[in-house]
């Protein structure tokens, strides 16, 4: 799988993401600075990693969504390319209009740095085929603005089309509507989620419960 990770000023999870992709595919992803205006040809996956791009100025992900590279990412998605956004990357995807809704300040107003449990609602997406539907797995979260929100009409559409891929199991700490932790585009190729599966890919450091996301997408693009 040819993957590229896009980095912005303030991105800080790109190395974890690179390790996760390498663990799943054996290949190093390309690292791309946000000032680039084109994506390398032959790319299978674009990843928008976590962090605090532009210091979360204005709104989380708002400035990054206007970066030069994002026009190319939009084109890539429009052509059916796979795009994964984690944490700040999920915020960028909503700000860029590639996924609906928005991520609000956590209902508790507290930054949440802890483990959470996610339930897999769809096991038929490119990112979740290596999970069983309904399975739960542990991931880490580290965010101040992870409270997923959308209007009632959008929520009905997301739920009706089965686009909620992950939900928080047990306590819904950030206050997300319908306990939504991750959603996908109508074609299921653009996925955004708040928790960090890339931090759960190594048995020596926190276990491997997040690895199926990366092996799933790698197997999907190889098929």
């Amino acid at each position, binding site marked *: 799988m040819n993957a590229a990770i896009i980095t912005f000023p303030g991105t800080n999870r790109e190395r974890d993401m690179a390790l996760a992709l390498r663990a799943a595919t054996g290949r190093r992803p390309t690292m791309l600075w946000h000032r680039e205006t084109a994506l390398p040809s032959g790319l299978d996956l674009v990843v928008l990693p976590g962090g605090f791009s532009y210091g979360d100025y204005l709104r989380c992900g708002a400035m990054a969504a206007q970066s030069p590279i994002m026009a190319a990412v939009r084109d890539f998605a429009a052509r059916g390319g796979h795009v994964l956004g984690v944490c700040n990357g999920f915020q960028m995807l909503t700000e860029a209009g590639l996924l*609906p809704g928005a991520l609000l300040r956590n209902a508790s107003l507290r930054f949440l740095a802890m483990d959470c449990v996610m339930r897999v609602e769809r096991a038929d997406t490119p990112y979740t085929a290596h999970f069983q539907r309904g399975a739960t797995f542990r991931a880490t979260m580290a965010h101040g603005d992870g409270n997923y929100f959308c209007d009632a009409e959008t929520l009905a559409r997301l739920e009706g089309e089965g686009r909620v891929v992950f939900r928080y199991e047990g306590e819904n700490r950030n206050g997300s509507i319908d306990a939504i932790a991750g959603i996908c585009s109508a074609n299921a190729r653009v996925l955004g989620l708040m928790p960090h599966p890339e931090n759960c890919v190594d048995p020596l450091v926190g276990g491997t419960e997040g690895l199926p996301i990366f092996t799933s997408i790698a197997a999907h693009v190889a098929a």
Partner: protein
Amino acid sequence: MTKLRVTVFPKAGVLDPQGKAIERALSGLGFEGVGEVRVGKVMIVEVSETDPTRARAQGEDMARKLLANTVIESFTVEPA
């Protein structure tokens, strides 16, 4: 040069946890009869456009594209 004041607020029905926290803190300080508190942002934007109508239209375009996220926020643009 025209100065525009762009005011951005969470839409009605969108949770405003900062507003809620301030509401509780004001009551905690002994202020009686505090109702709902909403927290928004004010941005002053200078533009070279001198025609007020055109300057305002430009400000509204800026708000729609970047200054506000219309999924969760409403905005007003007026001369500053």
